[in-house]
């Protein structure tokens, strides 16, 4: 078990984790501006809850949980817990010649179009390399729920990114 860091160590950990936190927030929100606002909100909460970090989990896990809570709060404030089902209709039609930049944009847009819970699970699993148990603990849901949301997210992404996938999807 790690020891709770002192104030200077805590500040150093926070500053060193800001880039990954901002990247995580960007994947969650799909927008740099919204991601920065999300991290700012999380920083305020982290400062108030600094004493609650006792080193029992990694700093990254602790701070990402705060970011997720802030993300949930922002979703509740905007009352967009569930995105419209016709989000796929907003996806632009692929061009014949697909360049890497455009594919990247399509992927980020498709991830942003996922429902929040599916997006959280996908980002944590795919980009933060977290296992199902860790995701379940961070989100406060069961591992089965994590697997189900991850499967739903991947299925929806296959639909949204159908034209960019090289191989046919398996149902």
């Amino acid at each position, binding site marked *: 078990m790690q020891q709770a860091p002192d*104030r200077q160590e805590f*500040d150093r950990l*926070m*500053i060193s984790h*800001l*880039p990954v936190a*901002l*990247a995580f927030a*960007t*994947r969650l929100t799909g927008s*740099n501006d919204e*991601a*920065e606002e999300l*991290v*700012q909100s999380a*920083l*305020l909460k982290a*400062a108030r809850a600094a004493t609650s970090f006792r080193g029992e989990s990694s700093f990254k896990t602790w701070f990402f949980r705060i970011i997720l809570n802030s993300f949930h709060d922002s979703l509740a404030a905007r009352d967009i817990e569930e995105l419209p089902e016709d989000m796929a209709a907003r996806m632009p039609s692929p061009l014949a010649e697909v360049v*890497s930049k455009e*594919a*990247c944009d399509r*992927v*980020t847009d498709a*991830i942003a179009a996922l429902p929040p819970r599916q997006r959280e699970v996908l980002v944590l*699993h*795919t980009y933060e*390399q*977290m*296992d*199902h*148990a860790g995701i379940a603990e961070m989100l406060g849901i069961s591992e089965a729920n994590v*697997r189900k949301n*991850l*499967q739903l997210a*991947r299925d929806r*992404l*296959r639909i949204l*990114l159908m034209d*960019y*996938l*090289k*191989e046919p*999807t*398996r149902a």
Partner: protein
Amino acid sequence: MRESDSNLPNDSLDDLLAQATWPNDPQSIHRLESQWREIRRPRYWRIAVPVALAACVVIGFVLMRAPRREPAPMPIAKSMPAPIAAPTAVPLVRPPTELERLRLAAVGMLPPAPKQLPADPVVEELIIRLSSPQIDDRIDAARKLAHLDDSHVTEKLQELVQRDQSVREALAVLQARKDPAAKTFVTSAMNDPNLSLLLYAVRYQYPNL
């Protein structure tokens, strides 16, 4: 570490997802760092205010618990002070009215009750006639009383004058009588501002009693 996703298909979706990048804006990182340092900057008033409040509470508690100095007891008088007599100005020749008698009785300065003079039917009748509505009757009674050799007449007339100063014939009789008590009364009455004018008027009104 992420566990192997054996239940997920190993298709090109993972390759496509890996292409997605979300480049961080260095300015955003810089702003977030500045914000964090600002948040964590020590604010001494956050310590000073609670300390000041705690000090006030402690001082108040100490003041509440401190023994209070009892005020010195008031000295108890061993004897009642002498009553201060109300200043009274009773005219020399006028007896106190009922209200004045009550006030004088309250302060213990009630003058002695007038002596009850022996009743002489002749003198009483003459004195009553002094208040007769007929002027001749009043003058006749006054002449008889002025020359009546009875020491009680002067006292009776003094009583009458003290009761009712409007009976001018009584004053005229007292001025005409030769006994010392009447002379003394007239001398004293001349010093009274009210009676002196009345005496002069009666002297000119009844010069030949």
